[in-house]
């Protein structure tokens, strides 16, 4: 049973990361109404930038702040140089653009950091484990749970309790109304994309010491982000959080008994839920 308990904790940690990814994607998809196929690549860039930042400064905490900001800046650049011109273009072109971007980013990662996987140790203070009574658990994962959890809650608070957050939520519901109310809809789009990119970057930064890095990590995470959004209901913040945790835990539990199926099970759960409830667990019909 300690194995199971440990796995559940693992699942919560990764689930929080999945929730961050799902949140970012849901914001972009909901507000900008574009399919962001570069979202996974932004996650990967966040991870790799973190590793380089740690290498350059020796300071994990600094890297944790700087790398996601770098990804947010990248997001701003992408929105400014490309996405901005495609809002009226139709989903197929938006898809091709973001898909092309994901290829460029993934290949650039290989060019800079090489095709082989990299591993990254947690900062010294977070190495080793903690005795939780029923199991001895890695400190770093507890940190991820806490940090990601705080960010998730923080994002939720931002969206639910602040004025600009309300504007963003309104933008998901009804863009025309928001612009009719005199709010600069283009600024909203830019902020939303940068925020989504930042969330992906943070998830990437936190993930580096848990799973190691590889150039393909972006694609895997992209699929998971989609599943979170599909299960959580588009534009539903709490739904994305709950869905992320759900599949994180489901994956971790399955991994304890049947490792090979642990990734596929995420998609199977999604497929099963959608058969019964096409709008996702929390979506409205």
């Amino acid at each position, binding site marked *: 049973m300690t194995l199971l308990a440990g796995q559940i904790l693992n699942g919560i940690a990764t689930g929080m990361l999945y929730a961050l990814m799902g949140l970012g994607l849901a914001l972009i998809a909901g507000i900008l109404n574009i399919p962001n196929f570069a979202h996974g690549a932004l996650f990967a860039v966040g991870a790799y930038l973190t590793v380089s930042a740690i290498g350059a400064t020796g300071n994990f905490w600094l890297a944790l702040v700087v790398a996601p900001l770098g990804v947010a800046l990248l997001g701003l650049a992408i929105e400014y140089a*490309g996405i901005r011109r495609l809002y009226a273009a139709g989903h*197929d072109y938006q898809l091709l653009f973001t898909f092309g971007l994901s290829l460029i980013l993934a290949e650039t990662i290989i060019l800079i950091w090489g095709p082989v996987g990299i591993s990254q140790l947690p900062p010294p203070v977070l190495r080793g484990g903690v005795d939780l009574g029923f199991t001895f658990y890695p400190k770093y994962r507890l940190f991820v749970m806490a940090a990601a959890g705080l960010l998730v809650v923080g994002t939720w608070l931002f969206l639910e309790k602040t004025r600009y957050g309300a504007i963003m939520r309104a933008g998901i519901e009804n863009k025309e109304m928001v612009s009719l109310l005199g709010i600069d809809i283009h600024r909203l789009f830019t902020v939303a994309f940068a925020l989504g990119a930042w969330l992906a970057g943070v998830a990437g930064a936190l993930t580096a010491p848990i799973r190691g890095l590889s150039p393909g990590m972006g694609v895997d995470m992209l699929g998971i982000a989609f599943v979170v959004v599909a299960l959580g209901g588009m534009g539903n913040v709490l739904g994305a959080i709950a869905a992320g945790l759900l599949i994180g835990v489901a994956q971790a539990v399955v991994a304890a008994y049947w490792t090979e199926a642990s*990734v596929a099970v995420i*998609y199977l759960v999604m497929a099963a839920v959608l058969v019964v409830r096409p709008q996702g667990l929390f979506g409205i019909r």
Partner: protein
Amino acid sequence: MRNLAVLAMVVALPFFVRPALAAEIWIFAIFALGCNLLLGYTGLLSFGQSTFFGAAAYVAGWMLKHWGVNLFVALAAGTGVGAVSALAVGYLCVQRSGIYFIMLTFALNQLFYFVAYQWTSVTGGEDGMPGIPRPAMLGIDFSDPVAYYALVSLLFLASLAVMKRIVDAPLGRILQAIRENETRAEAVGYDVARFKLLAFVIAGAFSGAAGVLYATLFGIVPLEAIGFVFSGNVVFATLIGGSGSLYGPVIGSVVFIWLSESVSTVWARWPLLLGVAFVVVVLYFRGGVVEAWSRFLSWRSSRRAASPRPSAR
């Protein structure tokens, strides 16, 4: 007239490029024909067509390798696998629309990808499924590249004829009506979800056939054949050729495969150029070369009232 042009291309191509590359072009064209029924005609952007392509390739490859079936049995099986897997995926996806639909097709593609990745005993995982034979039939030895090319091009021409039949029939118009105005299509009496599913299954069948031919062309089913890059490639080829017309995907396949094969042998980081090409085409040529090309194509097919797909929406 157009048909003659295609026939001429099919006959002439192996004189310009090696037969294996020419075969790959027509195989991809079959794949793109299916993709276009969804994308150009029905207005459904499926970003997971490699699901059906790859699944068919693996099943047919297995049958050819372990059960020694002949090519036509393999082809029939692959087409069937493509259609059935499309039925399952389509059933889940057609209930949603817009971005949601696109994301679902991708996510389900990932499901199949990961199953293929993990099920190494059957698919070979990352290494793919090698050793797929090209059994001789009717006394013809298909290991000869030219003989195989002849077979592939015949099958391509047959696929083109079938697709032409379908889009010239009422179904072609109905799918376009769904693309043009889904609400009205439903109001005049079409069960839109069922028709979308039908389009999905037909596209899946075409993808499956292409998958089988791909497997026997290269003698191996690589994991990429069921991956998302493949799914993106066929969308790209369909779009640069001009979606919404029957022959656009054919042109797009010629251009895309020729270019990608040429560059990929030169640089391992070829996907970087591919990504740049996607970005550049979308940003700068969407209203230029692409639209001009598709307008040219649709002018050619305007007699048949095959309406061009509005490019900017």
